[in-house]
């Protein structure tokens, strides 16, 4: 009886030990599962958060692009509209300047001023004045030369070239050998003054907007 109970105690011990080990194996597996799940969940949450963060950044970019495109389009449109008005004003001004040739007195005094300016720039004692065919025909060139020589303080020889200039108005004054020329035709003045005219027109028409 005593031997039996000793055997039973022994086998019970074997089984109890095995049960204990089994429980430990399962508990370890469950702990490991818990640890792996927590770690995986942290990684998944990070991945999901990154997707959300990237989407928010992309969304901001998409919105900015939409607005930026329209701003660019509007800016172009505005520039185009302003350009039309500026071109119109420049064309109108050119037309008005060309009309000065119809006012003989005004045009003559304007030509005189251009010739005097050109002579001052040339700084020579002998000059040649070039006019277009229309002016050669309509302007009293003798009077023009006389007025020039009277106005210029130093002695000067002024002659008017016979060959007409291809220009709508204004003058070219050259050295007598034609090597140095001061061009003061309408076309040249428009070209030279265009940047200044555009700035001035922009200021007058659009104020601070330009």
């Amino acid at each position, binding site marked *: 009886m005593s031997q039996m109970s000793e055997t039973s105690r022994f086998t019970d011990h074997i089984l109890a030990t*095995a049960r204990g080990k089994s429980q430990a194996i399962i508990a370890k597996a469950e702990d490991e599962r818990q640890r792996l799940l927590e770690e995986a*969940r942290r990684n*998944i949450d990070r991945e*999901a958060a990154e997707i959300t963060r990237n*989407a928010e950044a992309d*969304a901001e970019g998409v919105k900015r692009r*939409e607005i930026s495109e329209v701003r660019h389009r509007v800016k172009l449109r505005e520039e185009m509209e*302003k350009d039309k008005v500026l071109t119109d004003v420049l064309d109108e001004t050119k037309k008005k300047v060309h009309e000065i040739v119809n006012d003989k007195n005004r045009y003559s005094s304007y030509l005189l001023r251009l010739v005097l300016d050109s002579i001052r720039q040339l700084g020579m004692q002998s000059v040649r004045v070039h006019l277009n065919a229309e002016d050669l025909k309509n302007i009293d060139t003798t009077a023009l030369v006389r007025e020039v020589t009277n106005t210029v303080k130093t002695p000067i020889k002024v002659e008017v070239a016979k060959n007409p200039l291809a220009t709508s108005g204004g003058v070219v004054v050259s050295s007598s050998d034609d090597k140095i020329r001061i061009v003061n035709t309408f076309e040249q003045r428009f070209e030279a003054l265009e940047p*200044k005219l555009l700035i001035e*027109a922009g200021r007058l028409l659009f104020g601070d907007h330009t």
Partner: protein
Amino acid sequence: MNPVSCDTAMSGLEIVKEIVDSEKEAGNLLVQAEAKALEIRKQVDDIILIEHEEKVSAAKKEAASTLQMAETRGKSEALQYEKESEVRIKELIQNASAKKNSAVKALYDIILR
């Protein structure tokens, strides 16, 4: 033969058998435990896969919706800006057109100056 020692020998065999049986059972218990542990570890991969799929696809869905909303909002703001700009440009050009004659005169004076 001593009956007592015979009885003792028989008991010994039974004892050994009982011990061997309990060792077997103990071995089985350990094998079952290992199998269960393996099953538990295998479940982890499946659970992770499912949770990953659920959360990532939800995040992607939300991301697509965020993008869509941003595009819609951007288009709407852009349209509003375009409308306001139309009015502003129109006024700007009207004001400029009203000053055209005085500008022509000013430029004319610059050229003939």
